[in-house]
């Protein structure tokens, strides 16, 4: 087709099919992404104005910020132009692949043919050996050696001899396509996740049950009355949306819409945090692990109980709960959980309020919780103080009395059970301040994630094929030459020629070996 006859669409097609276009897109995505890594994404404006001030000075920063803000750089990976770039990138991959596919398919499907004698002289890999004896005698040694290096050959009769020809790995030419296709599927998986999935955070206090969580700030004015009614109904029906809509006499669709407008996503079931605990490394404020004990309640029944921690989430009906963070609830009405073990070894667990009395079993020693600190430490003068807002080193101060008379008092630490050993041999362990902490859960539903996993696997396979396997073609001609036999070998490999050369070398030594053995 000549240049003038090309239609507009053809031209667009040609642009998209060119590697140059791919390179332009690669560069654009990379260069704009760099800006996105320097500017903090979805951050407070001050942070980025600060960054810009440090880079370009105080006078330029505010106006620069406004320009960049308008262009969407403050949330650039979700901006229309970045998504357009990603779409162009996918279009480029697809069209490039389609444009080159017919030629590649032809190369793959093309059956092997014997090679003309003169082409043996010009093949990329060429070898020649001379063996004693007639071709008929040598033929078998050659054939078995070709088989030994893994080629299934065809055979043809030549003038004064034979030719064997074979190919391997013709389908490895598709490795690149598998890789490209996988990239497209990764993007499709991501789109499915964006379209049909959701993501949000939920701070769930110990002992509380949730039926919904917030995924974004409300859009538009909030109808508090209605929202509360819906949430109450949802709670009453353990998160079951259809039951809640029956209770409210409201259409399910309408109910969901109201929630969506308020930025709230119903779970469809309910989840309860039974307990939360942080474990620290010895003598350190580095958390070793933090754990939530969760219960899923569906249709009023407890269906799953599982403890989750970072790197070990809980999944139920496509929704996954990840351990993300934790914290203290200020002024929460918590229960002090103590284990009281008497000298004789009998023990019981007590849940107590602040200031509540307890008695150690089989004794007349009674205790009262007088003080609590989530993170107890002592200053130089030996005065207690709280060094952190989180439960880094929780401790209770307990007054002990015997028969109404003051006996002794002191701090008992959760992290150091030995502090609760009383002189008489009884043990008071501070197990938990239950109800005072919340677990920070990241909640996600992503129906596209399995596509991404599959596509990642096929991409790996595709890359492996593309880089480490090759399409190899081999021709071996066995021809009588002045009473002896000349073996001409020609080989073509679309990549990693040295490896194929080594393989051919091995074949040659096999031929020689077998020929001698056959004598």
């Amino acid at each position, binding site marked *: 087709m000549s240049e003038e006859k090309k239609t507009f669409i053809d031209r667009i097609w040609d642009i998209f099919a060119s*590697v*140059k276009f*791919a*390179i332009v897109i*690669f*560069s654009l*995505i*990379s260069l704009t*992404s*760099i800006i*996105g*890594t*320097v500017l*903090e*994404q979805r951050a407070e404006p001050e942070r980025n104005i600060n960054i810009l001030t440090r880079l370009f000075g105080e006078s330029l920063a505010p106006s620069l910020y406004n320009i960049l803000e308008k262009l969407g750089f403050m949330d650039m*990976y979700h901006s229309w132009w970045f998504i357009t770039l990603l779409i162009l990138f996918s279009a480029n991959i697809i069209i490039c692949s389609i444009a080159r596919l017919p030629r590649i398919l032809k190369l793959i499907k093309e059956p092997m043919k014997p090679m003309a004698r003169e082409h043996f002289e010009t093949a990329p890999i060429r070898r020649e050996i001379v063996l004693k004896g007639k071709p008929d005698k040598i033929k078998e040694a050659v054939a078995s050696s070709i088989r030994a290096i893994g080629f299934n050959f065809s055979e043809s009769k030549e003038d004064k001899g034979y030719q064997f020809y074979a190919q391997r790995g013709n389908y490895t030419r598709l490795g690149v396509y598998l890789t490209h296709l996988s990239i497209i599927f990764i993007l499709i998986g*991501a789109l499915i996740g964006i379209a049909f999935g959701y*993501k949000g955070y939920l701070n769930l206090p110990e002992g509380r049950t949730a039926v919904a969580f917030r995924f974004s700030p409300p859009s538009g004015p909030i109808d508090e009355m209605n929202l509360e009614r819906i949430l109450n109904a949802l709670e009453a029906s353990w998160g079951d949306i259809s039951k809640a809509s029956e209770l409210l006499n409201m259409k399910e669709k309408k109910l969901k819409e109201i929630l969506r407008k308020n930025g709230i996503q119903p779970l469809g079931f309910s989840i309860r945090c039974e307990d939360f605990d942080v474990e620290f*490394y010895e003598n*350190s404020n*580095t*958390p*070793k*692990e*933090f754990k939530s004990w969760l219960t899923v309640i569906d249709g009023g029944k407890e269906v799953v109980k599982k403890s989750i*921690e*970072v*790197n*070990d*989430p809980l999944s139920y009906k496509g929704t*996954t709960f*990840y*351990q*993300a963070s934790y914290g203290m609830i200020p002024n929460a009405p918590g229960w002090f959980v103590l284990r009281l073990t008497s000298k004789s070894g009998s023990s019981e667990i007590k849940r107590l309020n602040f200031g509540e009395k307890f008695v150690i079993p089989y004794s007349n020693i009674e205790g009262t919780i007088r003080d609590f600190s989530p993170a107890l430490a002592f200053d130089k003068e030996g005065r207690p103080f709280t060094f952190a807002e989180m439960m880094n080193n929780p401790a209770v101060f307990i007054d002990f009395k015997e028969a109404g008379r003051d006996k002794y008092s002191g701090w008992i630490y959760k992290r150091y059970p030995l502090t609760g050993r009383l002189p008489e041999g009884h043990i008071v362990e501070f197990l938990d301040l239950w109800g005072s902490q919340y677990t920070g859960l*990241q*909640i*996600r539903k992503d129906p596209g*994630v399995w596509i*991404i*996993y599959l596509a*990642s696997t096929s*991409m*790996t396979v595709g*890359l*492996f094929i593309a*880089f*480490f396997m090759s399409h190899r073609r081999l021709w071996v001609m066995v021809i009588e030459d002045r009473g002896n036999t000349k073996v001409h070998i020609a080989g073509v490999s679309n990549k990693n020629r040295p490896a194929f050369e080594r393989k051919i070398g091995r074949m040659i030594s096999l031929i020689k070996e077998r020929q001698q053995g056959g004598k």
Partner: protein
Amino acid sequence: MDSSVFFGLSTMAYIIAMIIYITYLAFRNKSVGIVATTITIAGFFSQTIAILMRWKEFNDISGMGFLRSAPLTNLYESIIFFVWCLILGYLIVEFRYKNRSFGAFVTPVAGLALAFIDITGMSKEIHPLIPALQSNWLLAHVTMSFIAYAAFAISFSTGLMYLIINTEKKNQPAYIFWAFTLGVFAVLLISMGIDFMTFKVAVRPEEFIKNYLFRASFMNKSAAVRIISWISTISIIFIVWRFGNILKTVIEKFNISSQILDEITYKSIAIGFPIFTLGGLIFGAIWADQAWGTYWSWDPKETWSLITWFIYAFYLHSRMIRGWRGKRVAIVAVLGFFAVIVTYLGVNLLLSGLHSYGELK
């Protein structure tokens, strides 16, 4: 004896090897070359022992089990592992191609990395693992990423050598490019050497700063020193540019064809790229998905590894464009390694994000 003794020995060995390799490049004395290789191998063994010992020490402290105690959890340990991979990769290349001249280009990268540890005063302590890092993916993700980085470092060195021997005129863009790159590299090496001499060798007790990177040059308190540093930088780059052709004749004497250099560059990238894709990007995404519930969140580390990936993808594709083989692709290979450095160090030192384990502290 603990691992730090062996780390110290290997650092010394590599820095000495670097000097000997450069001497070897200048004088081409065969026994000098053998000494360089021997010292490198000795350093490598010592480093291997050190890594294994630290692994054991870590395991004893954390009690997490062997697989989760790989010493790959902070910047210090990762640099050590990077250097280990790099030296291993280099030794493979040296034995395969029977050519020692690459040593003078690879060992300085190792030397620079190790000097960086001391000069920045980064923490060498064994820190217990925070919950996010307690995963079996840690070993796979980090080792594969660093194997890929080391492969890319080799392609950087050979790509640079390719440019050096294939440029003639001083006003050629490719010539200016390599002269500038090598110049910057030399400036970094020299300024870090000066940092080391002023603060480590001639310690002044009143100086209690931990991080003295560039404190003796570009970030010195005195403005005069800063100005001199910048002037010297420009002059060093100028000198490299002016006398670069000497380097060309030196390398040419070693009978390295540009074909071999191109081949090594390509092969390192062909090995590094799939490993990086699988270990760095895919395993990283799977791990993030399990730990945080997002397989991709456009945090700076992720974005920069994507940029790196794009540059090497660009390299692999640009070889297919007619007329792009040779110098232009070598430039892409060199640029790719800059992206690797930013992904690896720049993000942790300059930008914030989820991957904050690698901070200097």
